[in-house]
């Protein structure tokens, strides 16, 4: 990846990634009587893309803003490499973040937007041009940012995040406004960034894109942690078998006796969780129940996600 190829990085900074890249402990944020974030704890580790999932209004953005020192927590703490963001000696060289699409003066050119930010953190001008090339904005660099399309604005935001050649990327809904080509570009960028040993925390409510992007998943709902697990485990845990049998009642009882999760559907189908097809087939055989169909249904990430967050809402 070009993202890290040019700037020298002292070994001290590399060593410091022994601790979690981001650590959130007992985090609570109240806005009036609303608990936007409720006793939330999780960690983000280097070398991994961590997806931060939850429906709109679950508290993702608030959490990220607390991590970045923009919002003060009511209780608990959020640290970056063991330090509060506001105490980081060189924030841009540690964390790059994209929070929202419109975060620039529309009457300033994209290049000047980056030059202003680079100047504030003592980053040399040539890095601005490198980053513009990296995010594919060279051609539009001298145009006022107000004329940019949504996708170009996202690229400009990413450019700002990458200016300091950071070790950690924090992206809030970065795929918003990107076309399919842009999403693939983003995915390659993020995956490459993590593969170099950096940490990525990326939030989304559009889960389809997470399937190919994230390794770890943190699922929150109503400000609370619902699940932190490898993304693959999240989907496999929600795997179900669909069994078609004329004697649904008997088979359901037998499966239930053996501790499996069974749900009887209206048309006589059984949805079984907690076992593979061979085990269910054997149980049916032992119970002397004919099986007319036995299929594995791998639920999509979207289903797993809805299941998790709906459970919480009940």
């Amino acid at each position, binding site marked *: 990846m070009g993202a890290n190829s040019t700037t020298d990085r002292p070994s001290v900074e590399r060593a410091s990634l022994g601790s979690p890249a981001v650590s959130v402990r007992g985090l609570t944020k109240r806005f009036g009587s609303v608990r936007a974030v409720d006793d939330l704890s999780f960690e983000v580790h280097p070398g991994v893309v961590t997806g931060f999932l939850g429906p709109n209004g679950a508290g993702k953005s608030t959490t990220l803003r607390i991590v970045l020192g923009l919002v003060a927590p009511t209780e608990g703490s959020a640290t970056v490499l063991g330090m509060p963001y506001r105490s*980081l000696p060189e924030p841009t060289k540690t964390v790059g973040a994209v*929070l929202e699409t419109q975060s620039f*003066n529309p009457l300033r050119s994209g290049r*000047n937007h980056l030059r202003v930010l680079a100047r504030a953190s003592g980053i040399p001008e040539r890095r601005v041009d490198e980053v513009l090339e990296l995010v594919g904005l060279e051609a539009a660099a001298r145009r006022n940012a107000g004329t940019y399309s949504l996708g170009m604005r996202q690229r400009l935001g990413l450019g700002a995040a990458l200016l300091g050649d950071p070790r950690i990327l924090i992206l809030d809904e970065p795929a918003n406004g990107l076309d399919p080509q842009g999403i693939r570009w983003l995915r390659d960028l993020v995956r490459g960034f993590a593969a170099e040993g950096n940490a990525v925390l990326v939030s989304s409510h559009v889960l389809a894109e997470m399937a190919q992007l994230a390794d770890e998943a943190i699922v929150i709902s109503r400000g609370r942690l619902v699940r932190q697990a490898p993304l693959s485990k999240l989907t496999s845990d929600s795997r179900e078998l669909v069994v078609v049998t004329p004697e649904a009642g008997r088979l359901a009882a037998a499966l239930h006796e053996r501790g499996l999760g069974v749900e009887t559907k209206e048309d006589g189908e059984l949805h079984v969780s907690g076992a593979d097809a061979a085990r269910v087939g054997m149980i049916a055989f032992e119970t002397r129940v004919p099986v007319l169909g036995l299929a594995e249904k791998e639920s999509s990430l979207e289903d797993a996600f809805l299941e998790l967050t709906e459970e919480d809402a009940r």
Partner: protein
Amino acid sequence: MRNQIASEFRKLATTRSIYAMLAGLIVVVGLGVVATTTDAEPGSLLAPLEHQLFLNVSLTIAPLFGLLLGLRSFTDEFRYGSIVPTLLVNPVRRQILGAKLVATAGGGVALSLAAVAISFTVGVPILVLKGIDVTWSTGELAATVALLVAATVLWTSIGVGLGLAVKHQVAAIAGTLVWLLAVEGILSGVIPNVAMYFPGAAGFAVVGINSTELLTPVFGALLLGAYALVAVATGAVLMHRRDIA
């Protein structure tokens, strides 16, 4: 801190706003000078340069533009959301405030000097054309310009503080202008003994316009400085606590 100051100066230099303000200032002051000199009673034009009536245009307009520059400093960032990257790059909020005070002060110096320059560029030839012998006292002229610069810079600080406290650009600008152009004027008729200590009156006192009804320039500057301090302190306290959401 030095990086942040440089960044704030770069912010000023990289949008059209400051150039538009300079251009607007030049047009307004230029026209104002033409109007005051052509309408003036011939006798009043005989005064030395530092006491020429046409200079009052600069002395009124430049501080007002300085105030607007200050008001826009933070409210632009809140309005466009650029406060987020600004604070991500430098999360030490008092440094952002300090850097903006320095940068807008620089802008204020430029605005006031430009106003004076255009006043003389337009005014002096008109005097000469009218056959008036142009005189001046360098010391008094320098003092007038210095007081104008001081007033404008103090107004930029008031603007920065108020903008930071209010956040909303239209509310901040409209509120300030309504106060200065309407409320203060009305109150000065009702309670003149109190109104002479209001910010607008203090500002006029610094530049010595209608000095008989006003405080001395030095006292005016101290009072205006106190207002600036209160505005900046209010903004600083609010900014330190504020959630940027």
